[in-house]
């Protein structure tokens, strides 16, 4: 074996430089800002002041958790039924589930809000039918609904992909060995699609916990999540430090929760997409 040439050894150098400058350095800046005051002195005040935001954190985690579970409950059967369709329909369904993913989140959230707003089409229809108006925008339910609506495709797609890759012979074997359809489902299909579920859960949970546009629109600026807090704190130069502290805590929270989720999967780590 020859020695590696300079070309081969240096090929990764630009990437490493870029990484240090634009991934590592910004993270260090978050750390720096989180532990200093506005004059650059070391302090724990920012972290300690976060106790005022404890409800914001609890609410964000709760919303993200609920939204993820609802997505899973709706998405898993959907992915299963979709995978049972004929190849041609399957392809079409796949396009249909991918379209919202490719479509900008802002547009979908805004469309949902416009539809559900107190003076929107849904309420206009309800009034016409002689029913009561539904006050969805500005409520907890509205924000969770927004999360489920926006991120459901992210749950369905990875599960759907693992299901289509599932070897059909396992299911046949299970049936041959006397499993009924429920047993086949719980003993064969579900364990074999865990990796899809894990990556789906990650892809719903992480954006849900950090969103600010959904709560801004469907919560009407009244329901404050961690994302809203960060966004607001970074609008004002004097609150950068507290903002950095909030971001840091959120990052740690996410690392922990993704770590827990990966514990659930038997194979090493979830596959993204």
């Amino acid at each position, binding site marked *: 074996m*020859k020695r*590696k*040439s300079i*070309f*081969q*050894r240096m*090929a*990764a*150098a*630009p*990437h490493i430089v*870029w990484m240090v400058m*634009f*991934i*590592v*350095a*910004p*993270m260090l*800046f*978050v750390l720096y800002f989180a532990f200093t005051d506005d004059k650059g002195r070391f302090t724990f005040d920012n972290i300690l002041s976060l106790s005022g935001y404890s409800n914001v954190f609890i609410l964000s985690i709760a919303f993200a958790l609920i939204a993820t579970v609802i997505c899973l409950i*709706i998405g898993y059967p*959907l992915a299963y039924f*979709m995978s049972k369709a004929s190849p041609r329909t399957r*392809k079409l*369904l*796949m*396009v*249909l589930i*991918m*379209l*919202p993913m*490719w*479509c*900008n989140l*802002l*547009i*979908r959230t*805004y*469309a*949902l809000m*416009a*539809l559900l707003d107190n003076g929107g*089409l849904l309420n*206009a229809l309800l009034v016409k039918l002689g029913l009561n108006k539904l006050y969805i925008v500005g409520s907890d339910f509205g924000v969770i609904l927004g999360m489920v*609506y926006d991120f*459901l*495709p992210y749950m369905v797609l990875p599960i759907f992909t693992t299901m289509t890759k599932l070897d059909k012979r396992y299911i046949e074997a299970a049936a041959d060995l006397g499993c009924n359809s429920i047993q086949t489902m719980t003993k064969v299909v579900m364990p074999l699609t865990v990796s899809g579920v894990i990556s789906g859960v990650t892809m719903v949970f*992480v954006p849900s*916990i*950090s969103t*600010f546009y959904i709560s801004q629109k469907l919560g009407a600026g009244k329901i404050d999540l961690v994302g809203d807090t*960060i*966004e607001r704190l*970074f609008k004002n130069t004097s609150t950068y430090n507290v903002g*950095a502290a909030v*971001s840091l805590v*959120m*990052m740690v929270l*996410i690392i922990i929760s993704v770590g827990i989720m990966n514990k659930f999967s038997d194979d090493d780590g979830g596959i*993204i997409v």
Partner: protein
Amino acid sequence: MKKFLSSGYIFLIFAILYAPILVLIVFSFNEGGSLSEFTGFSFTWYKELFNDEQALTALKNSLVLAVLSSCIATVIGTFAALGLHHMKRKALKGAITSVTNIPMMNPDIVTGVSMMLLFVAIATFFKANNFMGFGTMLVAHTTFNLPYVLLSVTPRFNALDKSLSEAAMDLGCTPARAFFSVELPEIVPGIVSGLMLGFTMSLDDFVISHFVSSPNFQTLPLYVYNQTVHNVKFSMYALCAIIVATILAILLIVNFAGSMGDRRSRRAKGGAR
């Protein structure tokens, strides 16, 4: 019966998923400025959209940014994959890969905020004003495109047959020449899909751009955001309708034309055998 239930379920979920978007599209043809009452069919808002210079500039900015950032990321990322492929120290390799993946794992808002802190620090250090804008956006987009490029190029490198490039070098090629004439053609599909992925990620990004842009340089998602926090012009609905239609067209063409191509090439291969 079972079949009926499952297709009913699929239909129901897709109907809910698409209702808001469809309402938006239908009402973009609404003559009057209302989202709850359809008064008449017209193209007024489309006409207005095409006269709206801000929207057109935003579209242009989005495309320039997406092309440039995905190209730069592809070049850096491909060489990085090459370098990593030839790298012997496992620990270093692992460290680089996991650092590269940070923007993919982190919530967008944290990435955006950290980049913003870096840029603000640089701007204050050099006393530069007008620092935010195209340049900072390009850096940020390139950075979050990098992991996707690596993700799609690295497997191609791992599948390479090492003896080929060694043979080329035995026959007198320099390592650089060997890379460009032997290895590169093999990994082109990976490069192309990395490029495409980066391009779409960049077109779609709102959160990171929100923090590192200036109001003077708007991309399409930022334009949509600014519309939805002000008095929404109805031309925005027209814009959304066009975006959705474009994405649907691309997805359909890529998937179905692609599958036809696949079948033909498969048949051709079968014939050759």
